[in-house]
Each structure stands twice: as C-alpha cells, then as structure tokens.
C-alpha cells in the first residue's frame, strides 16, 4: 500500500504491532507461565504437595469407587498421577448423562483432597492464555486466534523489513541510547527465537482449527445428515455401545486390560481409563495412551469388553490428523522433559521481550516529535503498554500473594476464595493502567519496584503459611515448589536491576530537557555523554565537567513526575 513492498511491510509491522501488541504480550505472558501451570498449581494448592502411590490397582479402585459417586452413574473415569501431577482425578457422568463434580484424589492415602479454593495455574492462567476468560459466544478464542495470526504477520513482515538477519544474531549494544539498544534487543530476540515463535503461533491456531473453521467439513461430508458430527466421529473416534439394562455377571480385570494396552504401547501406561455403563452386560472400558514420552498428543485408545476383556476397537488417528496432534503436542508440552520445558519458558520470555521492546522502540522514537506536535496518541499507547507489560506481571504476582494471604474456605460477601483471588487480580491489573496514565513513563519503574516487593512477599508468605521454605523443599525434592520460589526471587532481582537502571535514566532526562531550550546542537552534545554515563553500572562520571553536574542535580524529589 506504500510506494515499495518493504515500506508497506514496515507500515504493517509498525501498526499491527502497536494495535495488537498489548494483547500479544498478555497472551505470551500467560502462555509462558502455562509452561509451568502444574507447578504453579502445587505452589498455590499446598494440600496437593503429595507423593503418588508406588503401586496402583484399577480393580481395587473400581470396587471402592462407588462410595465416592452417586447412584446410577453412566460412566466413571480416572486420570492417574503423572510426573508433575501427583494427584488423580475422578470424573463421572450421572444418570442423566451430564458430567458431575470432578473429585481430586490422593491415591497413596486413598482419600479425596479437599477443594483448594483456587483456580491457580491450570484453572486461571492457562485458560487466560487461550480464551482470555471471555466466555461469551467463544469470542475470547477468536480474539486470541486473531492475535496469533497477527503474530505470524508480524514475524513475516519483521523478516521482510529487516535485511541483515545474520548479523543480528550477534548484535546487541546495550550501551547505546535507548531506541537503538531497544531495537537491537527487539531484533535479537525476534531473530534468535523466530522459528519457535512462528511455530507456536501456527500450532496455536491449528490446535483450535475446529473453532476457526467450523464449516470445513460441510462439503466433504455434504451427504451426511449432520456433516460436522459425522466428521468428528470419524476424525476423533466415537466408539460407543448402548447399555442393555441386563446386569454384568462377572467383570473382567481392568488391570489385565491395562496390561494388554500397556504391552501394545511398549510399556507406556494409560493416561485415562473410563468404565462406561458400569455393571451393565454391555459395559466397556476405554483405555487411552499417555503422551508422557513423546511430543505427539496421542489419541491412541483401546476399547475393551468389560465382561470378557476382549478388544472391541482400537482407535488411532489417521496420518494427517496425527500430524495435527503432533503440532498440538508441540504447543501444549504435556510430555515429560524438564530441559525442553525450561527452553519453552525461556523462548516464551524471549517473546515477551520481543513484544515489549517493540513497544518501547515505537514510543521512544516518537516521544519528542509527538510532544512537540501535542499529539495525544502516545500517552494512550504508553498507558496500554505499561499496563499490559509490567502491569500484568505485577498483577500475576498479586494473584500469588493473595492466594497465600486468604485462608482456605475464606468468603467475603458470599464470594468464595477462588473468585476473590481473580477479582483481586483484575482490580489490581486495572489499577496498573490508571497508575500508568497518571505517572506516565515513571510508571515502569514504580511497577517494577512493586513487583519486586510482592515477589519477595510471595516467597516469604509461602514459607510462613505452609512451612515449605526453600531449604525444606530442596531437602524434600519438591522441585516444583522450590522452582516457583526461585523464579519469584529471580523476578524480584531482575525487577530491581531494571528499575534502578530506569531510575538513573529518569534522573538524567530532566537534565537533557533543561538543555533543550538552549538550542538543539549543544543539547545533543550534552545528552550523549549523559546517556552513556547512565548506562554503565555505577561507573563514575567521566564526562568533561559540564554533563557531570546535571547528574547530581535531581537527587531530591523535586523533579516533575510527568516527564
């Protein structure tokens, strides 16, 4: 749309970035945290810091499961403990066929674990990542999908407008002035992690392809009565067998069925076992392979006759659907691999840096000009940026802190604890936008300081309320709790380092501005050594006298806040 292809792409990159960037940062931030969703769960749900049993018998469990469930259920299913999830989950469908309340179990003690009063990582942070918790007409999925398309668009246009890809693998000049060093960091994080970022966005939309292309099967399955249902049945397996109403004489051993399936899977255990129409002569057992050992998000299911143990049906996905499931598995990393998990986390953080620095570059490049022209847009973008970058980080830590402050079972005005936590999160988060509007550029450092204090508070509160301080968790091998505490402390340190640097820079800025009316050229001369000085870590002023004085100038709090 501009004179040249590259200028068009630059325009698209800039404006798609500014318009979608806030949303993208939020999605990336929540997605990055979701890499450790189960570990966040352990931290926020202290009663789930348990050990799974050494051995487990489905037959023994099946005999007692009736005590936990209502009469006349149509099915029950059990998800057994995994590497990062030491509890089991019991599902059931009641006599009307609707799913009842999920029960969390400690299989080693054979007791239900009481409700932990929090949505934690899996119930709040993870769905935030893919639906923004906007349930109405599934609109959240569409917004996130649009953001994912924008991410791919930004990556492609970013490569096009950027001619020196190879060089930027090795270019970072933190000592340069802010727009330049920010652009370096933007390019570095963008180029280095480019394949991951592109694939994570693409696999993200492919994961929800049925939402984004709901009509895809309408023609190919045009001769069917309900094309979409027919497609789902074929593509995702829908083996069923109706109940007869006759009682089952003698149930076959579920452990034996699991052993058959496990042998077929080269020793990989099941992830999900369901007994459909228990006690009926036509009852059958669903045994689905675990995906712990590979990227592929398996849909490999055996259906056994509950009375004879014979295999009724073995479902595996067709090749292209398997490729789709591989991409899903790549995105949701449910496999066990700590090294890769940390790489995902770091790549996700690189995405956050990429988006954040893009914003800062846009702001810093325009700040002077916009202020001269008296344009309002910059302040809006600045507010949105600060609230969606440091704001959401601070709000997330507040979510952790409030979880450790409110006692289990706490209620306020009839609102339960799990909802209160979320309300606190949102109220605080909205507050960060208001704060950013009022404090402008200074809000960056304010919010970082707040995040640092809150992060340390979260670690202290965890130790006080659960007794699991970092030495204890290290001794016990509770690495998910230990890791969460460690990451909170690292967050605090990083926040302090960045905030201090910003504060030093902020002190230098008024000096630069006082120099501006004295005519442009001398101001530039003065500004340069100043900027370089403030970059160095506590380096003594080495300038030639003149710029050194303004550095000492704003030691008091008299400087204007609205710089």
């Amino acid at each position, binding site marked *: *749309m*501009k*004179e040249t*292809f590259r200028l*068009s*792409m630059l*325009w*698209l990159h800039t404006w798609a970035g500014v318009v979608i960037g806030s949303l993208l940062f939020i999605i990336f931030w929540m997605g990055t945290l979701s890499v450790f969703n189960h570990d966040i769960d352990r931290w926020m749900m202290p009663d789930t810091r348990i050990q799974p049993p050494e051995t487990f018998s489905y037959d023994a469990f099946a005999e007692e499961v009736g005590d936990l469930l209502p009469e006349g259920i149509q099915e029950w299913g059990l998800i057994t403990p995994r590497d990062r999830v030491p509890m089991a989950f019991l599902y059931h469908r009641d006599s009307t066929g609707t799913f009842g309340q999920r029960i969390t179990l400690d299989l080693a003690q054979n007791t239900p674990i009481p409700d932990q009063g929090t949505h934690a990582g899996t119930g709040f942070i993870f769905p935030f990542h893919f639906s923004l918790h906007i349930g109405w007409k599934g609109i959240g999925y569409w917004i996130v999908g*649009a953001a994912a*398309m924008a991410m*791919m*668009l930004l990556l*492609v*246009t970013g490569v096009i407008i950027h001619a020196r890809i190879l060089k930027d693998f090795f270019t970072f000049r933190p000592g340069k002035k802010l727009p330049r060093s920010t652009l370096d960091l933007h390019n570095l994080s963008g180029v280095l992690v480019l394949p991951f970022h592109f694939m994570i966005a*693409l696999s993200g*939309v*492919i994961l929800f*392809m*049925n939402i*984004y*292309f709901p*009509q*895809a*099967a*309408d*023609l*190919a*399955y*045009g*001769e069917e009565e309900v094309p979409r249902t027919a*497609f789902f049945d*074929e*593509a995702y397996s829908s083996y069923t067998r109706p109940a007869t109403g006759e009682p089952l004489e003698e149930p076959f051993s579920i452990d034996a069925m699991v052993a058959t399936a496990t042998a077929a899977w080269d020793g990989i255990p099941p992830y999900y076992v369901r007994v459909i129409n228990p006690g009926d002569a036509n009852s059958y057992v669903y045994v689905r392979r675990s995906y712990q050992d590979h990227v592929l998000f398996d849909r490999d299911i055996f259906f056994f006759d509950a009375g004879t143990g014979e295999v009724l049906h073995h479902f595996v996905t*067709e*090749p*292209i*659907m398997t*490729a*789709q499931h591989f*991409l899903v598995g790549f995105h949701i990393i449910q496999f066990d691999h700590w090294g890769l998990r940390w790489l995902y986390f770091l790549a996700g953080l690189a995405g956050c840096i990429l988006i954040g620095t893009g914003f800062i570059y846009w702001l810093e490049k325009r700040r002077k000009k916009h202020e001269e022209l008296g344009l309002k847009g910059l302040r809006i973008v600045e507010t949105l940026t600060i609230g969606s970058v440091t704001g959401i980080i601070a709000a997330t830590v507040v979510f952790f802190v409030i979880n450790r402050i409110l006692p289990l079972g706490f209620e306020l005005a009839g609102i339960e604890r799990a909802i209160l936590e979320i309300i606190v999160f949102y109220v605080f988060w909205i507050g960060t936008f208001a704060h950013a509007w009022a404090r402008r550029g200074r809000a960056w450092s304010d919010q970082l300081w707040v995040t640092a204090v809150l992060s340390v508070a979260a670690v202290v509160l965890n130790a006080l309320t659960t007794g699991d301080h970092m030495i204890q968790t290290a001794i016990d091998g509770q690495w998910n709790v230990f890791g969460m505490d460690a990451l909170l402390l690292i967050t605090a340190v990083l926040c302090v380092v960045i905030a201090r640097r910003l504060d030093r820079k902020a002190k230098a800025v008024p000096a630069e501005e006082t120099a501006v009316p004295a005519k442009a050229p001398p101001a530039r001369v003065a500004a340069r050594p100043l900027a370089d000085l403030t970059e160095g870590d506590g380096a003594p002023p080495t300038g030639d006298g003149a710029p050194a004085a303004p550095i000492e100038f704003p030691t008091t709090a008299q400087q204007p806040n609205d710089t």
Partner: protein
Amino acid sequence: MTPPRGSRGFRALGSHPGVHVTQRVLLAVVGGYLLTEAVVSLLAAMLAAVGMVRSEAVVLSMMLGFVIYLLLLLWAFAERRLLRLWIVFGGATALAMGAVRLVQAALSAGG
C-alpha cells in the same frame, strides 16, 4: 510523488487516509477470512472427491487454511491498488462462496 494508480475510481472513498486504511483492514481481515473459509470447504471436498480419506481431507484443508489466510493478509497490505483488492477479494470470495452453494445444492439434490 504520484498517487497510487488504480485508486482513481475510488478517490472519494480511498483518498482520505483513515477511510483508505479502514477499507484495507476490513478487506484483509474479514474478506480474507471469508475467502479462506470458502476455499477450505472447497479444498476439503475436492481432496475427498479425488480419493483422500474424508476426515483427512478436512483436517489438511483446515491446517492449510491458516497459511492461506496469512498469505492473503500479507498480499492485502502489499498491493498498492485498493481497486484491485476490492476486485480480487470481492470477486474471489463471491466465486468461492457461490461454488460452495452449488456443490451443496448438487449434494442435497443427489442425496
């Protein structure tokens, strides 16, 4: 600097930058999606017709749909002439959606 060719006929609509950008974004995002959606359905039916397993044809078309959409988005912002965008997105979308209706009608008549 000469004004972009082709926008002449749309001068009233396309000359104001805000109007121009709005048209382009809507064409790209909405027009691009409608075109992609129709192409995905047609591609799935075509692949199934030439012997691919039906469910596989649908899944492959859906996955390719995201790449098609991405390319359409890029082109919508690269093309200088707004008129051509209108013709291609409007025309191709109308054609593809018409084809979807035709196939549907043929199927329901045959079935």
